[in-house]
């Protein structure tokens, strides 16, 4: 028996873009098409001249039994599409994939969870949806509950759970799947840090048992820690495959870190962002220049330019600051200050710039990633790009000789120190 468990050859997936995304076709459209092209409609060729895009193209690779492979790439690079094809959710448009063994896919945790049902009921339901047998769930039930740490609330409807509890329970079910091939999307991005660590631990157990894992993540630390090899996708194509360390370096040095201004093209903005339209995000030094290298001894300004097409209530536009390894440093929103919060309860249509200043002597040496998020709390997330742009910070000229070595940690703030000499 061959030890190659996943083999893909010229795998491709084409999607329609344009009007189709905004609404489902209605009967009227089809009837109109039929009148327009009676012959074509009868032959079942109702495809009008809508634009098609390749979400994935010519992807060929092999994975051996027991390998743990990371899949990295920017938003829209085709990572999710690849996972969806491998987990049989959608069919490829071209090429093929040959898979040996049972595939368990975790594109999301808590799929099929129902708010009205209790934790206990949801464990069974979700387990069954993920492909577990009833016997299997019953056997692992106690283990799942214990792992999640929500024993006390197991007979409470999950709508009364906090979001953290909900995620923990959902992940616990998923973590107890035992497929031969596990396909995992960015599911660890959620949840608190401690639980994330627990999940990562569980995941490396899975890998050690000799099962094959395909792991998609934006968190480079997690990818580095968990995977041996990684595939880099860019705009639907596989551009690199190498041992993880090398692949991460390749990914980080390409595309990223070119400029510290990011402009969004119309095609990069999903329809769901409406009425929020991002225009640009930039990092600016005190002289008003937007370069890709900032000095740690100067304050820097982060600017987000965007348009509101219809009034939005409770909108907040904010930034994520991450290290180049994907660890979150902080999140901040433009309505954090009470004055701005009161002034912009409703944001009227128009063009805006949200600007914030990060003080001097805050960053450490190295590269940082900025993400953008525009949302109304608990209502809707309009737009999010966790990796909008990258910039580097140079500690050159840091205050004198008193900062001799490279400091550990993601930031290196200069704090207000005082030394007092006490008389004996």
């Amino acid at each position, binding site marked *: 028996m061959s030890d190659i468990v996943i083999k893909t050859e010229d795998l491709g997936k084409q999607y329609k873009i344009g009007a189709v995304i905004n609404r*489902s076709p209605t*009967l009227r459209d089809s009837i109109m098409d039929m009148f327009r092209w009676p012959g074509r409609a009868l032959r079942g060729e109702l495809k009008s001249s809508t634009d098609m895009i390749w979400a994935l193209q010519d992807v060929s690779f092999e994975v051996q039994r027991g390998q743990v492979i990371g899949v990295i790439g920017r938003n829209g690079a085709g990572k999710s599409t690849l996972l969806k094809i491998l987990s*049989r*959710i959608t*069919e490829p448009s071209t090429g093929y*994939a040959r898979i040996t063994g049972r595939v368990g896919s975790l*594109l999301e945790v808590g*799929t099929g969870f129902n708010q009205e049902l209790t934790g206990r009921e949801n464990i069974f339901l979700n387990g069954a949806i993920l492909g577990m047998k009833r016997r299997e769930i019953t056997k692992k039930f106690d283990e799942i509950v214990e792992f999640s740490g929500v024993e006390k609330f197991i007979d409470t409807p999950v709508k009364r759970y906090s979001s953290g509890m909900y995620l923990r329970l959902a992940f616990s079910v998923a973590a107890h799947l035992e497929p031969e091939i596990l396909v995992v999307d960015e599911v660890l991005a959620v949840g608190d840090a401690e639980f994330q660590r627990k999940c990562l631990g569980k995941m490396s157990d899975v890998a050690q048992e000799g099962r094959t894992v395909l792991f998609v993540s934006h968190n480079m630390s997690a990818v580095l820690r968990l995977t041996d090899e990684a595939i880099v996708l860019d705009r639907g194509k596989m551009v690199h495959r190498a041992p993880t360390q090398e692949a991460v370096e390749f990914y980080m040095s390409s595309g990223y870190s070119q400029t510290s201004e990011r402009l969004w093209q119309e095609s990069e903005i999903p329809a769901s962002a409406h009425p929020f339209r991002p225009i640009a995000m930039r990092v600016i030094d005190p002289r008003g220049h937007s370069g890709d290298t900032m000095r740690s001894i100067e304050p820097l300004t982060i600017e987000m330019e965007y348009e509101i097409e219809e009034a939005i209530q409770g909108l907040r536009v904010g930034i994520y600051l991450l290290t180049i390894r994907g660890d979150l440093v902080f999140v901040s929103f433009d309505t954090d200050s009470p004055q701005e919060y009161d002034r912009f309860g409703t944001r009227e249509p128009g063009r805006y710039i949200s600007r914030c200043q990060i003080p001097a002597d805050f960053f450490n040496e190295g590269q940082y990633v900025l993400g953008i998020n525009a949302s109304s709390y608990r209502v809707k997330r309009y737009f999010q790009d966790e990796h909008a742009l990258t910039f580097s910070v140079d500690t050159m000229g840091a205050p004198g000789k008193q900062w001799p070595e490279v400091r550990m940690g993601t930031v290196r703030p200069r704090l207000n120190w005082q030394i007092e000499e006490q008389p004996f």
Partner: protein
Amino acid sequence: MLKPSKGWVSLNLGDLWRYRELVYFLTWRDILVRYKQTLLGAAWAIINPLMQMVVFNFLFGNMANISTGDIPRPVFTFAALLPWNLFSNAIGNAGRSLVTNRNMITKVYFPRLVVPISSVFGGLVDFMIAFVILLGMMVYYQVQFTSTVWALLPFILLVLVASLGVGLWLSAWNLHYRDVRYFIPFMTQFWMLATPIAYPLSEIPAQWQTLYSVNPMVAVAEGFRWALAGGSPVEPFALMSSIIISLILLVSGLFYFRRMERTFADTV
């Protein structure tokens, strides 16, 4: 082996069989959620057909004055309303099922047939509850139970087959044309009037009866009354056409559904 499929595909019923437990769990979920969410819970399963019966009895009894033979009018109407409600709930729920479960469809693989099938089964509990009421009514009106009660089972099966057939077509259409959602209630109402629920089949002029019996629910409604309360058995022609039409609906629905299935996750 995953590759683009073309044209008509096999039904792959083996895969469906492997996922039979999921059918059970989804049916169980639908029932649980429905009774947890509504204030009166199971009472709706009784109130609904009772109100329908009252309206029908008023229209067809007091106003149109149509005879129901030896069977007391409430029992006559209620006995036919039971399978009808099973049918109409099933096609409504199955028709919407793919859209309401879109979250699962875009995130996990399982044979998509599981979804409409379990929503058809979900109606059986309501049916059972209402059936108990019917038995009570029969005792109250002193209707003699006949030895033909066993025939209810094949008639229930017939309802399930017919409603799954219609439900499969509707659910696959509903993904591509959301208009179907608006079309279902309208279609159900029209279909109900074309089914002998509050009136006997014999009220239909003889020359129209053949055409009328194309509706598979005709034989079911008549059959239910016959099995429970006796009277004249179902016309053999109506029975045959009901069985054949139901099977055609089911088989064509299965193939159509499977054919459309490959694009579900992309269009939902």
